[in-house]
């Protein structure tokens, strides 16, 4: 087990999440939504967390933000350290609030995440009044500047309008303005462009990139769109059934995909590269029931390479590259199958 991944980064990390597990009590039993997630993120970098609905990607970041309703939710184990200071279960670090000040967040559906009875300007001013103690007037002026920074035209007029007067793309810009109001060191973007058209998506992604360059904040981007990942991410964590099954640089993930789930996803998507045309191959079956997760690998039931061991024991993180690991028995040092025999559509 010498190749088990312990810590991927050597450079100083901004945020380190270790062995995070979250459960929810429901009428049907206990759902193990997140089952031991590890990742780190550096300043100024973008980490994309990808996976299909129900894989636990949103719950992971909500736990960090203290947004899990408890009960029915419960963080059963793990830690999340921001510059070495634990944030789980706490509201402040050194007097600075975590939520809103240290970590900003934008959501998938800006229509329902904003208060319809407050003007946009007041809503952006609110975190400044709460976290910085600004007067309303000063906060509102700052809100107008933030709207300008988010490239909303006629910001002074727009700040006095209500959410219903904005289009979807504009609302997402307003959300971004609100999230960066207190200059957070991490911005969490939970499916920020899923509800938007590709043209507006391109605008929002450009805006996030520009803001990251200006402020040096780290971005955690949650998405299921591999195109958005390719455009935005420095690093990618692929989640499946509450665990990160593959983690590496964006090039590792796309050009040297290792985990069978990632291979399956790529085979299920159309490619626009004429040299790589293939018939779409759907992944058979559906994700496992997280009320009673399987004893072995979560992907086992759908995996075309599944072996006997996969159904009975959890694989660990095995390195397949310097900073690239896969949580799959195929990549265990004793595995007879060599990882590169599995690679699908390698382009290098």
């Amino acid at each position, binding site marked *: 087990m010498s190749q088990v991944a312990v810590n991927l980064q050597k450079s100083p990390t901004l945020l380190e999440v270790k062995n995070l597990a979250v459960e929810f009590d429901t009428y049907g039993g206990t759902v193990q939504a997140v089952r031991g997630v590890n990742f780190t993120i550096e300043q100024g970098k973008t980490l994309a967390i990808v996976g*299909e609905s129900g894989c636990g990607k949103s719950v992971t970041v909500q736990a960090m933000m203290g947004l899990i309703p408890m009960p029915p939710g419960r963080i059963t184990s793990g830690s999340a350290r921001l510059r070495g200071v634990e944030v789980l279960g706490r509201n402040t670090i050194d007097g600075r609030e975590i939520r809103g000040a240290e970590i900003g967040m934008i959501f998938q559906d800006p229509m329902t995440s904003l208060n319809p009875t407050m003007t946009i300007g007041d809503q952006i001013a609110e975190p400044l009044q709460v976290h910085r103690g600004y007067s309303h007037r000063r906060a509102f002026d700052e809100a107008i500047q933030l709207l300008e920074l988010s490239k909303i035209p006629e910001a002074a007029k727009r700040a006095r309008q209500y959410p219903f007067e904005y289009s979807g793309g504009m609302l997402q810009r307003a959300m971004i303005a609100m999230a960066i109001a207190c200059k957070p060191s991490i911005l969490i973007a939970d499916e920020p462009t899923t509800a938007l058209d590709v043209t507006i998506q391109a605008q929002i992604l450009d805006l996030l990139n520009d803001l990251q360059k200006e402020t040096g904040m780290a971005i955690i981007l949650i998405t299921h769109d591999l195109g958005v990942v*390719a455009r935005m991410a420095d690093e990618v964590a692929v989640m499946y059934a509450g665990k990160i099954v593959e983690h590496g640089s964006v090039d590792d993930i796309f050009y040297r995909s290792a985990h069978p789930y990632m291979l399956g996803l790529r085979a*299920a998507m159309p490619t*626009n590269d004429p040299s790589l045309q293939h018939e779409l191959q*759907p992944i058979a079956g559906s994700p496992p029931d997280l009320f009673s997760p399987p004893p072995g690998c979560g992907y086992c039931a759908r995996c075309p390479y599944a072996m006997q061991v996969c159904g009975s024991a959890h694989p660990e993180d095995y390195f397949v590259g310097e900073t690239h690991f896969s949580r799959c028995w195929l990549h265990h040092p004793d595995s007879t199958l060599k990882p590169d025999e599995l690679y699908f559509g390698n382009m290098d």
Partner: protein
Amino acid sequence: MAALLEAIELTRYFDMGRKQRVHAVEQLSLSIAEKEIVGLVGESGSGKSTLGKTIVGLLDKTSGSVKFRGETLPQKYAPADFQRLATKMQMIFQDPYSSLNPRMTVGEIIAEGLRLHSDKKAPEIKETVADWLLKVGLQANHMSRYPHEFSGGQRQRIGIARAMILGPEFVVCDEPISALDVSVQAQVINLLRELKETMGLTLLFIAHDLSMVRYVSDRMAVMYLGSLVEIGKADEVYFDPRHPYTEILIGSNPEPDPELERSRPSTAIQGEIPSPVNVPEGCRFASRCPRVMEVCRHTTPELLPLKDVDRQVACHLYT
């Protein structure tokens, strides 16, 4: 090429009161050949769904006409028209959660068409429904279950079975995959393609996922604010777009290829799709077009064939 379905100067407005009108589809002509898949793309609010619904008669036509096998369909469907045409044209809806009646069993939902439009007896209907459940990858005993017991992908397949059971010739698929996960999208797409082969279907495939439309369709049509701006062979339109809007739309589509994405200049377009209420004169794209000319602001360009490629484009750059 024999056209199975032809929309001729089809127009659909919605009155909003106070003399405001939404010009959802305006003077749109489109002909779809037999056994062809035409992909329809465009931003939300461009009128794609309205066009689909108007073509199958779920919405009345404000003006213009739709011809099916040479027969001009009525401007407004009477119950008898639905009765007659339901066996020829069907629709698959976008949202598999709201398009199935939660109080009907899956068997009832799928059988309803047969019950109303064929003289088959109950046992025979039941058999056909069971057949179709198997064909779309479900099981015959799912018949007695309710929609809420199924996942999104399974529900979408129930919607497909419901549309296909009458053996239609033409089906409008309104964003059939946008509510689904990637791994499930492929299942639904492959099912549609397989049914197209075995049943000789003609499809109007509405979607906003450009890569998927290119993969599925024979021809791709690009819609902007109620009008077609470009139509041609799907691959050619994707790899060699001619209309400035198509260029921007395809340039905004993120590809799952990091190197390509890094090398690609940002093509983000300024502004958003204008309101389809009281649209301005001239080219509707003029307000956002990077190559706008004086003529664009007062003359509406027509959809005309290009000289060098097999393509129709509505843009003054080419006239």
